[in-house]
């Protein structure tokens, strides 16, 4: 609150000090997109800027940027915020969140200029990328370590088969000999299946991301399992939020994830004798986070199983019914989309698996799929630029 005794000169001096020392980038832009005022942090980062075009300063470009928040503020007369990627005076990539606020002349007058206040989030972005890499490495480590669990069971089965066969031979017991051979057969088949699945997992495929309707994939998966569920006497229902904007997903990867969850949920229901067995597939968007949810009222899991489901080739479906790779693949695909998998489960009550995708962390669309989504505003500028650079 200024003191009543302050002179206009003192106020101006205080304003200049405040403006210049504001610890974020501040620039005032006129209707020609020329910078008419910039604070010290802006000048130090992007260089002397008076009279130069904002896109020249921020991004070293020669023409205005698409999805410009200043342009939006001029045209709509309201504040706009977006995440941008620029280049500092030394040529380093800089990430910042910028809010463009319209500045009017007289009361309710037209917008004369726009003030852009930007916060440098470059380090935050680097940390986020480092975290993603660390998560992926951890998943690989856990996968390799987890292989042991499945293999150890198969080795025990093979050793058992060999022992039973030898014992049959020694005792001239044909029945036992046959049992031993059958055990060997079973476990050789299991290890072959296991190795094929693991190789498929390890080799994987590069996500082919494109703008898709999230509800469309969920609907396909529900349709795929509708008949299986009906045959098993399980009610499979879809509860999709009406309008979820298109988002960049690998449709095949997302389909695999949801199919794994629905298949597991049906298996979990089949293990109970509940007459009202049900599986519900939900989609929703909350605060820029797209969520897919698969809920069942099946067998549920105790804490021991919950801890292991994503870290091993871990199956509790019983002999011959799974290698435990489904959730591992799901986790891998979800992580490749910058998302995470949550699970809530109670033994005897059922489980809810949620695939949680913050839209800001979804990967850029690849190759032929660079077109902007049909039903929403263009993505943040840096995403669009990167997408085009790949085309």
């Amino acid at each position: 609150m200024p003191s009543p005794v302050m002179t206009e000169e003192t106020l101006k001096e205080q304003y200049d000090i405040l403006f210049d020392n504001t610890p974020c980038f501040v620039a005032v832009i006129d209707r020609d997109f020329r910078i008419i005022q910039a604070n010290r942090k802006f000048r130090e980062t992007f260089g002397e800027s008076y009279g130069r075009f904002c896109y020249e300063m921020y991004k070293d470009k020669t023409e205005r940027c698409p999805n410009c928040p200043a342009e939006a503020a001029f045209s709509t007369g309201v504040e706009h915020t977006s995440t941008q990627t620029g280049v500092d005076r030394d040529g380093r990539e800089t990430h910042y969140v910028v809010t463009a606020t319209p500045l009017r002349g007289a009361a309710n007058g037209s917008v004369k200029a726009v003030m852009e206040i930007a916060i440098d989030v470059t380090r935050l972005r680097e940390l986020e990328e480092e975290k993603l890499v660390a998560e992926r490495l951890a998943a690989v480590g856990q996968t390799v370590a987890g292989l042991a669990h499945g293999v150890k069971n198969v080795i025990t089965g093979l050793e058992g088969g060999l022992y039973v066969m030898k014992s049959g031979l020694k005792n001239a017991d044909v029945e036992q000999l046959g049992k031993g051979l059958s055990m060997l057969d079973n476990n050789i088949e299991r290890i072959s299946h296991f190795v094929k699945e693991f190789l498929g997992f390890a080799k994987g495929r590069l996500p082919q991301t494109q703008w898709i309707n999230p509800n469309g994939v969920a609907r396909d998966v529900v349709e795929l399992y509708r008949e299986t569920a009906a045959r098993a006497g399980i009610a499979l229902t879809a509860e999709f939020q009406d309008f979820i904007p298109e988002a960049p997903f690998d449709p095949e990867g997302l389909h695999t994830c949801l199919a794994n969850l629905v298949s597991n949920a049906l298996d979990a229901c089949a293990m109970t004798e509940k007459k009202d067995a049900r599986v519900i597939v939900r989609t929703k968007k909350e605060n820029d986070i797209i969520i897919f949810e698969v809920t069942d009222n099946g067998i549920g899991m105790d804490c021991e199983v919950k801890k292991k489901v994503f870290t091993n080739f871990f199956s509790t479906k019983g002999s011959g019914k799974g290698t435990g790779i489904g959730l591992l693949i799901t986790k891998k695909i979800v992580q490749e989309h910058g998302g995470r998998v949550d699970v809530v489960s109670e033994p005897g009550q059922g489980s809810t698996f949620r695939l949680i995708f913050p839209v800001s962390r979804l990967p850029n669309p690849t190759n032929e799929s660079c077109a902007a989504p049909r039903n929403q505003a263009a993505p943040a500028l840096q995403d669009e630029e990167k997408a085009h650079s790949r085309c």
Partner: protein
Amino acid sequence: MPGSLLSKLKTRIPSETADRNNGHVRVLIIEDEPDIAAYLQILLKEYGFEAACETDATRAIAAAETFRPDVICLDMVMPKKTGLTLFMALKKHPELCHIPVVVVSALHPQRDFDDMPFEDFVRKHGIPAPDVWLEKPIDRAAFLETIRVVIGKKRHESPTFS
């Protein structure tokens, strides 16, 4: 495992052709993999034990109540009910709590329990650790000797498992 017990055992494990006179010792195998269950059952029978299998974990307690084993071999990762849940239930069961339990699992009691080693977890719930933890694939001689030792220990020490 109860490493100390295994290290003691390893120094005195005889060959598989050792004394097979284990008659009247009853072993219940709780294992969902039919091949592994059959293997352990045939192995134990060959060495004179009376062995029964239960491949459905939800029926394991009833099987133990009926069969009244001298020792239980327990798998950890099973559908419907896990070995951890079963172990806790067995140790809280008034008539079964004294029966020694030998865990036979592909899991390692420390490495594979991320938050807390298995022993610490059950102790936190006031339950003693299993007598022995054998990791799959098993060493046959060590497995057989383990069964003999835990039964001997049980008979020698007291009727109450601790």
